[in-house]
């Protein structure tokens, strides 16, 4: 089954358009069946507090319901285990809990359990998410269905924080029993319960018959085949070994589209490919150099060459669909190599400069780096590339401050303030520059003061303006969530966060 290349590649945009129209006939949800998903590798930990990768969520969501949920297309907050929440004052957040929710082991998910969880993520030594809930001072229970969070400072990012790891409720009984081994023995209150995990092979879930949503889940179980090679994964779906695969590359998407019995879906996400700048040192400390880099990049061509036009050009760190997107900042840096050279000359580098680019050694990253290296030549920037394995390069760039730029990606956070704090906050680990840009800390704090979306949006606009005007990084593309599945799989809804959720999925026929 070899595919005609030109047809495959030339028809990218057209195929995309036609595929959006091609939907399986809508059916009424049916009970039964096990969904077999090709997952992008092992989970780092089943304990939401100790995990460390954005790729984990797809396997965490079925097991753990969160206190608060997010609206799939826009990422605004909506109820889940908490039916309502309210900032009675900027430093007090009251959560009303849904009654009669049970964990998989029968323990009640009540106020006491929620308090246990919120205390745990702050005090458990192995917790990786302490920073997310740092604003919480104490947690108080009022009866069995209400929890009050007393904060050290205003933090209106908390509701959305509670839609992520910090809000994933684990059973206190189970955690007391397993301790560290909870990493491998999860017990939550989600639609699925854990059956087994065979490293690098599969994880298996079975239906939670005590789930609080009536009639849900539709599926009898989910099996994640852990296939870290996407080609292998796609093949497994094409041959029927698996039903569903996500996070496809654009090239694979083309293949999937040509397969007659596969349904494909492309949807925007927060997942941003970008160049991190080490703006604290050397040539990068000059804003003009950083701006020149931004001008030298042709994002549209980058999209075409590396993503077959399937991704969205990124002018800032949030995509068009997000509630905090600011159109005023769009196209701050159009492709302009002449302008780039002029800026470099202004900064004293009339003959161009040489910079060190760090990149990961997987083929996709290498390809992207090769494209950027060529593009930057026209702007007077020569790139020396240093690539290596992900753990090594990440450590070297962020801890060791080695290299001028890192070609990487940001998986996005449920609340934008988390992203900006981690990437540009003074103490943010992913802020290699380490410098404090004037006004940024205040602007960041301002995003967490009010609950009103329009106020927050304006605050984010200030933050983004500082980041983009000073060219503290070079956003490149927003990846699309590229998914392929067979026709049996119905009810799939993509999310802007880009981490797949199988809440409404059912198997037909």
């Amino acid at each position, binding site marked *: *089954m*070899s595919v005609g290349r030109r047809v495959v590649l030339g028809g990218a945009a057209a195929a995309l358009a036609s595929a959006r129209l091609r939907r399986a006939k809508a059916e009424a949800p049916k009970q039964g069946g096990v969904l077999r998903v090709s997952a992008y590798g*092992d989970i*780092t*930990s089943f304990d939401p507090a100790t*995990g*460390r*990768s*954005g790729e984990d969520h797809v396997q965490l969501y079925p097991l753990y319901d969160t206190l608060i949920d997010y609206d799939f297309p826009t990422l605004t907050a909506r109820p889940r285990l908490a039916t309502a929440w309210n900032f009675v004052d900027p430093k007090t957040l009251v959560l009303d809990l849904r009654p009669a929710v049970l964990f998989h082991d029968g323990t009640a998910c009540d106020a006491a359990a929620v308090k246990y969880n919120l205390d745990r993520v702050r005090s458990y*030594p*192995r917790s*990786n*998410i*302490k*920073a*997310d809930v740092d604003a919480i001072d104490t947690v108080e229970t009022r009866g069995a269905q209400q929890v009050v969070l007393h904060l050290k400072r205003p933090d209106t990012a908390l509701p959305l924080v509670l839609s992520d790891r910090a809000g994933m409720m684990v059973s206190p009984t189970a955690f007391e029993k397993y301790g*560290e*081994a909870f*990493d*491998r023995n999860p017990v939550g209150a989600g639609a699925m319960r854990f059956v087994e995990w*065979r*490293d*690098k*092979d599969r994880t298996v879930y079975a239906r939670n018959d005590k789930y609080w949503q009536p009639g849900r889940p539709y599926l009898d179980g989910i099996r994640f*085949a*852990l*296939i*870290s*090679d996407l080609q*292998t*994964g796609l*093949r*497994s779906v094409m*041959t029927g*070994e698996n039903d569903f695969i996500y996070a496809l590359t654009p090239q694979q998407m083309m293949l999937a589209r040509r397969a007659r019995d596969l349904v494909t879906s492309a949807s925007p996400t927060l997942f941003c490919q970008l160049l991190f700048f080490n703006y604290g040192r050397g040539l990068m400390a000059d804003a003009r150099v950083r701006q020149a880099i931004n001008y030298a990049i042709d994002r549209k061509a980058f999209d075409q060459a590396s993503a077959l036009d399937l991704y969205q050009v990124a002018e800032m760190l949030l995509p068009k669909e997000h509630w905090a997107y600011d159109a005023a900042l769009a196209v701050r840096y159009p492709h302009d190599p002449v302008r780039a050279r002029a800026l470099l000359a202004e900064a004293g580098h009339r003959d161009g400069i040489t910079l060190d680019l760090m990149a990961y050694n997987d083929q996709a990253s290498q390809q992207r780096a090769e494209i950027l290296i060529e593009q930057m030549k026209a702007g007077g920037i020569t790139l020396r590339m240093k690539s290596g*394995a*992900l*753990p*090594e390069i*990440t*450590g*070297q760039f*962020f*801890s*060791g401050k080695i290299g001028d730029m890192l070609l990487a990606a940001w*998986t996005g956070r449920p609340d934008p303030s988390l992203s900006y704090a*981690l990437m540009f906050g003074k*103490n*943010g*680990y*992913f802020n290699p520059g380490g410098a404090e840009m004037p006004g940024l800390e205040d602007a960041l704090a301002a995003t967490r003061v009010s609950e009103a979306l329009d106020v927050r949006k304006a605050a984010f606009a200030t933050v983004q303006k500082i980041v983009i005007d000073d060219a503290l990084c070079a956003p490149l593309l927003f990846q699309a969530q590229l998914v392929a599945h067979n026709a049996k799989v119905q009810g799939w809804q993509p999310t802007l966060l880009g981490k797949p959720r199988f809440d409404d999925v059912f198997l037909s026929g």
Partner: protein
Amino acid sequence: MGGAWREFGQRAAAMLPAALLATLLVFALLHLVPGDPAVTLAGENASAARISEIRHLTGLDRPLAVQYLVWLNGVLHGDLSRSLLSGMPVAQAIAEKLPLSLFIVVLAMAFALVLGVPLGILAATHPGSIIDGVVSGLAALGVALPNFWLAMILVALFAIDLHWLPATGAVSLRDNPTQALRHAILPAMALAAGGMAEVARQVRGALTVVLRAPFVRTLHAKGLPGAAIVWRHGMRNIAALLLTLLALLFNRTLGATVVIETVFAIPGIGSTMVEAAVGKDFPMVQGVVLVMALLVIVSNLLVDLVISWIDPRGRRSVGP
């Protein structure tokens, strides 16, 4: 025979330090590699504070010598510790992944022998003929092919085009023998090419020498049919060679599984080792290296044992 076992035991005991030395070398080597597993463990929400906290929690901030000795102490008590990154007991991980790789290796060795020995015999019994030329050519090709390239070609042909065999993954023998075999055939074939070439070449070479010896001509003159000569006298003399070859084949194929496992996305011991090394998962790497070093050593020793049993005089000269 008892003496042989005792000698085996003594030599095995002497080899153990070599295996442990290998783990020490790995430990030292990996520490030369920049990269901090604590950074990996801190993950997406990393912060400098969190990273030092993790270093302390996992004992990564202790002096290197202490870290190694603690691990060594564990090993001597039968505990291979846990993966730094996944928490899984190293012994369990090895027990799950090693059989997958071994199955492929053994299958590959079987292919190599089943194809290589007859080819070598053919070439030796028809020296200078076209058959000899073809065998030599195949042997040369087998050694020159990058095995992962051969793997790619096999996948393209048998899995993608013809759909005869699965392109990906592995199935444990215990779970489903038929599927296990189907998944293992293509990887084994890719691995076998080099081995087959080596076996054919060695068999041809050694057998040629044997067949040229005077005693063979005498047997010929006495009227013994060619096949009997080859079988009874030729092969017996090269039995030791074949056994040594087996050991070498095993070692080499085991080492080569890494790249093959990458092409076929097989969660075997090779890819586990590389990922652990890249991620600085010290306990996992050291455990795997120890086990693999022991495997290599034991297989060598076994072969030596069998050879000395077959051929106690250790002669390498050729005779009836």
